[in-house]
């Protein structure tokens, strides 16, 4: 089995913004695995996924994603970016553009710079985009504007955009936290199915233990910027989960801890 991501002793001191700290995080994810990052909000899940996506600076440690080491001082080369797909919690779609345009935006990194700027997707770009739309069950919405869609439909568009990148690794940051339980299960079903069909590795974060249990093969518990446990889904105990959320309600913000 090949390693999709290898993270050794990574730390990140948050610099006052929204990003939470990470402390000595080590993790290895095999290609094709579906892993859930479980933890209360503020545990550092978003920071961790953003780091793996190459959009975080000034961290320490060693990280290798899809065989390429990440450099904490420089953004990764554009050539490698389409291999890593990212699904955002709040969708991050261009509201006034059509569904198809948003999905084609996921192809921009695969097009030649000239094609990208002149908005001339070739036949293959269009086919990949249409396939992604069909896999997300929204082929009929292609010409609709995103601002006319519901939350569940928007996250389907965001996942289709991610699939259009033809990613080998999919990072999903709380992809269903803004949706109702039925919608959430639907979205995670199609995300994991599409990933399996494409042989892509998935790392998704969630604060809901039942979703992690249902959709992942492995659950990594995070708390206070550290990894609390790392178990196969079958070995996830109620105690371990309860421990993760212990005092979560009155837990002070990481920023306060850093001051003390």
């Amino acid at each position, binding site marked *: 089995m090949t390693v999709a991501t290898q993270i050794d002793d990574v730390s990140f001191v948050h610099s006052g913004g929204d990003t939470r700290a990470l402390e000595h995080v080590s993790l290895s994810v095999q290609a094709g695995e579906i892993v859930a990052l479980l933890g209360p909000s503020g545990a550092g899940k978003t920071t961790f996924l953003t780091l793996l996506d190459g959009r975080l600076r000034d961290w320490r440690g060693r990280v290798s994603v899809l065989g390429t080491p990440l450099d904490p001082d420089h953004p990764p080369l554009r050539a490698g970016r389409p291999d890593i797909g990212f699904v955002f919690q709040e969708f*991050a779609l261009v*509201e*006034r*553009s059509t569904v198809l345009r948003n999905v084609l935006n*996921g192809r*921009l990194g*695969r097009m030649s710079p000239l094609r*990208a700027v002149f908005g001339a997707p070739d036949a293959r770009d269009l086919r990949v985009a249409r396939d992604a739309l069909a896999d997300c069950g929204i082929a009929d919405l292609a010409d609709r504007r995103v601002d006319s869609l519901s939350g569940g439909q928007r996250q389907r568009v965001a996942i289709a955009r991610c699939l259009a990148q033809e990613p080998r690794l999919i990072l999903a940051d709380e992809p269903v936290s803004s949706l109702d339980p039925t919608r959430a299960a639907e979205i995670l079903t199609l995300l994991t199915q599409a990933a399996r069909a494409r042989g892509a590795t998935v790392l998704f974060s969630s604060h809901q233990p039942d979703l992690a249990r249902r959709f992942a093969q492995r659950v990594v518990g995070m708390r206070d910027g550290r990894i609390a446990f790392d178990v196969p889904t079958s070995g996830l105990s109620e105690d371990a989960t309860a421990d993760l959320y212990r005092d979560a309600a009155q837990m002070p913000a990481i920023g306060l801890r850093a001051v003390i």
Partner: protein
Amino acid sequence: MRSRGFGSFAAAALVAGAILWSFATTDVELSRILSSGPRIANFLGRMFPPDTSVMQEIIKGSAETMRIAILGTLGAVLLSVPLGLLASETMAPPASYRPIRTLLAFIRAIPLILVAMLMVGAVGLGPLPGIIAIAFHATGMLAKFYAEAIDGVSPAPLAALESAGAGPFARLRYAIWPQMAPVVARDTIFRFELNLRESLILGVVGAGGIGFYIQTYVRSFQYDKAASVTLAVVVMVVAIEGVNVVLRRRFS
């Protein structure tokens, strides 16, 4: 409590003083106020019936006003694109956007009619000073609006395109521009409508357009002709307002 009572007494005294000072130092006599009623009635009487023989002048003046508004808006857009970029917090450093924003506020504070008078002095009579004045005056508002349109762009889709590997130009075209375009279009049309309205009176100071005829006819006591031109201006303002209502509905 006592200081608050003193404060309101001082404010009332200040207002009363200001009113008394204005009366005492202005040539407003009771007899003039009383006689002004019949005089205004006489003046209005001489405006009726409006002389419709000036239709040619009205059309010529309106066309020139339209040209001043179009070219003035074009000039303002050309000036506002670079200034808007330099005044935007997301595209420019504080060393750029702070002074540029102050400059734009300064430009906005100068009344258009004053700019027009200065431009007539600088380049002579005709539509050219009107166009320059409109371009200058409108830039104060339009560049600020453009900067706000840039700063109003949501950063999340930008991060998504960066994550997908899109280059800077592709990001500009597919994440920034689609969010900006409707705002820029709306602001530009809104400013054009203001320019058209404001350029109607530019002719009064000799800066071209239909206002020139009002000034000419009033000065030569041809009040019936002035009335026709004034009516034409009112009709145009109402028409512009109507178009504006429709456009606002379209862009909201």
